[in-house]
């Protein structure tokens, strides 16, 4: 049987984090499951976790009274979901809804925040990894904003 530590240590996000830190991170991890159309989190709620999606897909959405639920991005197997747990005021800025049956590993952000405050090296390592993801998402968003496939006027 695959242990959480083994799954986490094989994920690119935690690559070369070191055995001690991996044990520490695993201590904050648990398996979670979301049914189709179940919300993983809702905008405005306290952000105390992030998720490593193992199976299924999750839509990041915003609700607008005029347009309903607008999907900004979908995430799937292998993707990291959520970084609001890391940055004050620690609340979600989007809704996240499972599009399919979704299995993930939830990491307790509150627990990790405390450990990062106690050990700044761990904090720096995690921040480096999240910066990489944020950079990728920013790049994707910029490309989306360019509306590359639209007709040039």
């Amino acid at each position, binding site marked *: 049987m695959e242990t959480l530590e083994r799954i986490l240590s094989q994920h690119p996000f935690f690559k070369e984090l070191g055995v001690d830190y991996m044990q520490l991170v695993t201590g904050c991890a648990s398996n979670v499951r979301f049914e189709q159309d179940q919300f993983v989190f809702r905008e405005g709620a306290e952000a105390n976790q992030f998720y490593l999606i193992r199976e299924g*897909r999750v*839509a990041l959405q915003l609700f607008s009274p005029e*347009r*309903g*639920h*607008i*999907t*900004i*991005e*979908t995430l*799937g*197997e*292998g993707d990291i979901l959520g970084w609001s747990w890391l940055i004050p005021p620690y609340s979600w800025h989007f809704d996240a809804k499972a*599009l399919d049956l979704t299995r993930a590993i939830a990491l307790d952000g509150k627990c990790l925040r405390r450990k990062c405050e106690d050990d700044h090296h761990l904090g720096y390592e995690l921040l480096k990894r999240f910066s990489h993801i944020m950079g990728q998402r920013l*790049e*994707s968003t910029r*490309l*989306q904003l*360019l*509306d*590359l*496939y*639209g*007709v*040039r006027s």
Partner: protein
Amino acid sequence: MVPRPYIVKRIRKDTVDTFTLELGPKDGRSHFSFAPGQFNMIYIYGVGEVPISICGEPSNSTLVHTTRAVGSVTKAMSKLRRGDIVGIRGPFGTSWPVEQARTRDVVVVAGGIGLPPLRPALYHLLAHRDAYGKVVLLYGTRTPDDILFKEELENWRARFDLEVFVTVDRGTPGWRGNVGVVTTLITKAGFDPTNTIAMIVGPEVMMRFTALELMKRGVKAEAIYVSMERNMKCGIGLCGHCQFGPLFTCKDGPVFRYDQIKDLLVKWEI
């Protein structure tokens, strides 16, 4: 290079601004052979001539072109009816490296109207499926309404020997598929980056970022091919309209190996 008359056998509206022409030789006899990735110059009499990639099956006698109505010629083309005559010069240009790709994984990345130029390559790969490793199609469009060849994509998706991922930049109500740019699909696809040939068509910015993502994943620049479109006019490298640095897009392209042009792509002076 006199245009040969071809008769419109069928015209089909694919999306709000995209359509497909099926053409046959007016004399009913001449055979048209082309390699996947090549293009024709299509002449609408009295309006003008435009380069359009060939998007049908290489083995089929019907010539198929899918394009978007954006300029005066393609808008006139979209108004053609069954039985109308157009002029065809071609096929021109270089083709997709389907022979070099044998035994390797193949990743095909299409953005928007970039799928039609890749379709003949996909037909070829599927017709010779045993000759290749994994075959992956990554396709990104603007919205779900802009997805081309929906029925064919569904058939391809049902195959066990072809991985198909589709994403849109903007989801619409009721869309349950992927939302995000096509580059985000690269990490989802299962292929061996050290033994992969990639073929990309789309807007230049999309092709640059897709190539970068593929290289981040370990695909070498020499194994990435892109199809360019730059003011092709004569189709045979004489007029100079499509000059791209030291290259002519119509004659040296439209299919280029990425390492041969990657430095030119970021030089806005040319």
